[in-house]
């Protein structure tokens, strides 16, 4: 794991309070926290692996699986909720056959619910990779998903 080593080199006088920033750097670089990375960080900081893993699972930001090719983020903020985003959530789960935080078997789609994205005037909002879709309803969602499925074929 060269990438992890490189990141660790940035923390020469490492202390316990560097743990979260290190994990964040690794996730930014690799996309998720691998088992090896967690072991390596534990060794570097002289903390038991279980503690590092325990900390990482506590926080919502860290993921332990790769994202799909198209990672869908649905805003589950209070405003989007009041604009009936639960209907799109349901539809998306039905359509892809996966739940929030999971990835489809072919690795094409993954999706997660996020807290407020800050675009409350345009809710419900969803983002696929870095492209945003606003005022999404079930019909629009189906069109969007269809578009990405067609891209793959």
């Amino acid at each position, binding site marked *: 794991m060269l990438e992890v080593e490189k990141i660790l080199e940035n923390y020469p006088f490492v202390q316990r309070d560097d743990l979260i920033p290190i994990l964040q750097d690794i996730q930014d670089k690799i996309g998720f926290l691998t088992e090896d990375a967690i072991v390596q960080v534990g060794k570097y900081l002289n903390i038991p692996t279980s503690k590092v893993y325990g900390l990482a699972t506590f926080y919502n930001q*860290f993921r332990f699986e790769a994202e799909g090719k198209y990672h869908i983020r649905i805003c589950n903020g*209070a405003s989007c909720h*009041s604009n009936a985003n639960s209907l799109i959530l349901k539809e998306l789960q039905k359509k892809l056959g996966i739940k929030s935080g999971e990835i489809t078997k072919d690795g094409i789609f993954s999706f997660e619910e*996020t*807290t407020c994205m800050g675009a*409350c*005037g*345009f809710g419900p909002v969803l983002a696929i990779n870095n492209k945003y879709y606003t005022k999404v309803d079930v019909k629009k969602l189906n069109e969007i998903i269809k578009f990405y499925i067609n891209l793959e074929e």
Partner: protein
Amino acid sequence: MSEKGNMYKAFLTEKYLNNLNGALEKEDKEIVSEIKREKIRKPIITIGSNSPSNIAGAIGLEVSIKEYIREREIEAELVEVGSLGMIALEPIISIQLPGKTKLFFKNVASENIISILDGTFNNYINEESVLGQIRNEMLESYERIPYLDELSYFQNQQRLVLKNCGFIDPNSIEEYLAHGGYKSFFKTIYKNTPEEICEIIEQSKLRGRGGDGYPTGKKWKIALETVSEQKYLICNAGESDPGAFMERLLIESDPHKVIEGIAISAYAISAQKAYIYIESEYSLAFERLKNAIKQAKDYGILGHNILKSGYNLDIIVRKGAGAYVCGEETALISSIEGERGRPRSKPPYPAIKGLFGKPTVVNNVETLVNVPLIIEKGAEWFSSIGTEESKGTKVFSISGKVENPGLVEVEMGTKLRDIIYRVSGGIANSKKFKAVHIGGPSGGCLSEEHLDTIIDYDAVLLTGTSLGSAGMVVLDEDNCVLDNVKYYMDFLQKESCGICIPCREGTRRMHEILENITKKPKDDNGNTTLQRFKGVMQLENIAEVLKDTSLCGLGRKASNPVLSTLKWFRNEYEEHIFERNCEAGVCQELRTFEINVEDCIGCTICAKKCPSDAIFGTPQNAHFIVQDKCIGCGICFDACKFSAIISK
């Protein structure tokens, strides 16, 4: 840095910053107005660059504008600004031509940007997209176009904290300085001792904007009086409330003001190191803060021997990792120390023993932004605004079913009704108001009869909610109050850190009970209704236990959404329990379905799709639903192509 940049830097730090009485020579005034872009030689276009506008397409728009300028060889400058606060009208751009007032346009898209630019440069204004113009008597104004300050959105606000937002370039320290920025900090470190600053803040009666409303000056004094060679100030920018966005927009729009607030506050408690704890998802705000700190260091306003005063201050920005509980100060401290974000029992309070065991003050972003204002205009001025016990203004992020969602800053003591109807333009699509949820997961729902409640820490507490994070979500007749409460309970049970049992178990049980009363019972015997009703009695019990026994504020306030709705929306609970009906039609699992015999052609699709095998019938004959087996999922309703299934 360019030559001009160096000239500005020398002027601003050596001449302008220490000029506290405001008298300037003519040529100096001109430099200031040049930096502020009041007097311009070439057209200036500003574009709102913030999270909502980026989602609405501002990034693409910026490219189009640049292309437009290049293609037509117009000598114009494009400047990124923050947010005016009107998030539903983003992307907002402004165009200022030399000698004329600044014109704002709303909802600009790639389709109409060319016509807007073409029009404005050729003296034909696209009135449909115009938001308004800035009032400036020195410049020629446009006819028939309203002034921004005449819009009811701005008219009914008192913008102190948000004053610069949407007008200045958040990436430019020069502009912030030219608008009088860092003057309060300069005054502080040269003219006042830390004790004096604490005294001024205490006299101003500023209360923490994070939710509890603890007097800021008092907190600082405790930290200042505690003897320790190292002290810390933490700026809490970990909003993570699912319905609030004011800290995010405030930082994105005016990051230097946050830095100045931190700098003064750190000086007041004699801290030489400050942390900003910001949500990991706020990447734009993070970048802007980083940039602001870098610029301030470059200007000698942060770092070692600040402005040659002998005072040192380092600001470190830390990204949170996404945990709602880290909004609680002791949990936040644990998180910065590299532990799980779990609260500790108080006392000892952080002001005595906090980060790394040293005295630490944790303040919310908005609290800190108020500090430079108080130093600039005095404690007396500040305490003249607001109500008896709550001074100053309060920023809200208002969203949900209002006409004009966004950032709102009003004087303490303003009525809720005025915020919703006058500032935010009332309920969208002429629907009926149902409820307003204040304070996020630790707040509660208020009904129409509470619209005359005033914004004041204590007045809001009396209604059984709390100002909390000051996120406000307005619900209309299409929303179900129970569904809303269920949403917050779901959020809380996921976010509960699990260290104390009342909160860990209580939030989960409350969510379970709410789930049960918003869906149809699996086996319906005569006792079911009674059982469901008992569930509500349990809700009240659990809520009381949580309030009394939880370790931190998250647990103690977790029952607020339930208790407030039980108090003010009891009829909705009763409707769900006794009549098994959700008037708004949101709680789908409560619905019952029937098949209209005349419309059903017996295609068997519904029977095949039914997950609980509740639909019977032979092909080409009308089917029927066995109500005892139906779980009310609605799949048959969606599947039927002949509209033969009726929902009741």
